[in-house]
């Protein structure tokens, strides 16, 4: 009994060390006063200072933020609608259509979107094409979360609202929307995190011109690995972490069904 316990702790610790040591090293060396990620010389904020004066990097960050906000906004609206439709109409092909992009290999999605934009839509690649691409793979995630929330609820609640005098729109605004709000917010945050660090699909659909953050980082590594990359990675991590924590808070409510009567 005691032995298994110890073994379990040991394995768990090893897994966590394996997962987090590289991340911790990245964070620590972002404050290191040396060009090399080899030995600790002294504390500095130089790399952050440099980062915030790198025009290309700032532009990339701004672009990425713009894409992530737009794509997650679009995906949240479309995904919520998809989740509601899947729940209400129970047509078998509907969930498949919405969820397929999640399961599809990213590279496949990237290539097919690229061909679609160029050959079918005749679109100039740029921010717009990236936003559309990101929206397509985020919609499914939002739809899944919204649908899960609806599945956990008693459908007669919505009939009761109609029964007691609410129009379909009033029912949506006063009953459905407040009840699925945590799911919508969780879906939005998830879309944001997925979009802001997406590399593969972005790479295929960005074209030339506008710098995008994950690709910009990759390009910097190709030239030389400087602690500037550590700094941007650290900031990135921080943002994602905050969003994950918020999403998790909202989502755990769904899992526990706290509002289910």
């Amino acid at each position: 009994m005691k032995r298994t316990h110890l073994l379990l702790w040991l394995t768990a610790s090893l897994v966590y060390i394996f997962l987090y040591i590289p991340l911790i090293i990245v964070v620590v060396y972002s404050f290191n006063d040396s060009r090399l990620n080899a030995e600790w010389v002294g504390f500095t904020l130089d790399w952050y200072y440099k980062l915030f004066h790198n025009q290309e990097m700032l532009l990339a960050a701004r672009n990425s933020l713009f894409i992530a906000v737009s794509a997650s906004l679009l995906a949240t609206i479309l995904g919520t609608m998809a989740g509601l439709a899947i729940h209400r109409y129970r047509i078998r092909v509907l969930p498949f259509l919405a969820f397929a992009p999640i399961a599809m290999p990213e590279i496949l999605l990237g290539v097919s979107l690229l061909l679609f934009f160029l050959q079918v839509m005749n679109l100039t690649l740029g921010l717009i094409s990236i936003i559309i691409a990101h929206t397509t793979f985020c919609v499914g995630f939002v739809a899944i979360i919204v649908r899960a929330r609806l599945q956990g609820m008693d459908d007669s609640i919505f009939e009761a609202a109609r029964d007691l005098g609410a129009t379909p729109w009033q029912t949506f605004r006063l009953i459905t929307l407040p009840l699925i709000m945590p799911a919508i917010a969780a879906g939005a945050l998830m879309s944001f995190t997925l979009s802001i660090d997406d590399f593969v699909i972005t790479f295929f659909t960005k074209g030339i011109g506008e710098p995008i953050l994950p690709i910009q980082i990759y390009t910097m590594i190709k030239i030389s690995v400087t602690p500037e990359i550590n700094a941007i990675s650290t900031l990135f991590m921080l943002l994602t972490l905050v969003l994950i924590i918020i999403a998790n808070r909202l989502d755990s409510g769904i899992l526990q069904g706290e509002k289910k009567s």
Partner: protein
Amino acid sequence: MALLELRNVIRRFGDFTAVDNVSLSIETGEFFTLLGPSGCGKTTLLRLIAGFDTPDSGQILLDGEDIASTPPEKRSIHTVFQSYALFPHMTVTDNVAFPLKMSKVAPAEIRKRVEKALEEVQLSKFAHRFPHELSGGQKQRVAFARGLINRPRLLLMDEPLGALDAKLREDMQRELINLQKEVGITFIFVTHSQDEALALSQRIAVMNVGKIEQIGEPSTIYSAPANRFIADFIGKINLMEAGVTHISGEDMTLEIDGLGTITLPLKPAVQPGDRGVIAIRPEQVKVYALAERTEVPHAYTGKVLDFLYVGDVTTYVIELDNGVRMEALLANSAPGRARFFEVDDPVIVSWPQEAAQFLPDQP
């Protein structure tokens, strides 16, 4: 004019006819029950009346006006759901106020009426609680308060007592009858529980496979079931296969399979050769010890096969000499008396002539 009238209402789901040509009319102030086994179409019928579903054909008239395709929010009909369907993100007050808000009643008036309604159902103390903080009985009272607050013409109830435990259910049945008398609103109650239907209703419609089999007062449904299905469904009953041998004047003579002939008053439309069942309620069956040698009509000898003692009454299963089994219900009313007979005791079974009814098979 009837408050609610259904005319030849039909609702199909694919090949399955859930509501099959139903016509009925309900008067203002009635406590009406739709009773039937699960899947008989009673809930579908209720949903058609509420407006959650539209009939494939037929009319639904409320105060003489066809509402078959009117959306639920435009009908002066409210529903109390089996799950109560309280809005989980609203307090008790907001739940009860919801129908008034929807019909744009002034806020001050809403506050006054909600307070009064909560007082009536003894929930004033719980006004600011959320539904998940209430017990089953309290939730149900909120559901009723919410359904009745803006005085609908009709209140529909879909097995509202189903989720409560037995003791509470009996209390709620009594409260429900009183509530209906007080508010004077017409109630349509849906249940699969015959006890509940008999206890609560002024009239009952018994449904089976989408059709209404009989409409009548509880005592009529119980004592004069229209057919074999109803006899079997409502309460316990002894059913014995029988055939009509001949008819003379006001009487008909029947041959009960393996038991002999009996004579009963003639039922309309019965022909010699018709087959059906003789139905006798267990509480109408008299049982005597063989030693008593009582001279009674319709007496058959047999022995006790089994019995079920439930306190106030004991049900005896008696096998007659020719193999027919009958159940008899005897009240344990004599002081200190737990039961009358033991297994294998020889007995005589009989019943008053009027207790036996012939229910012809449907063509």
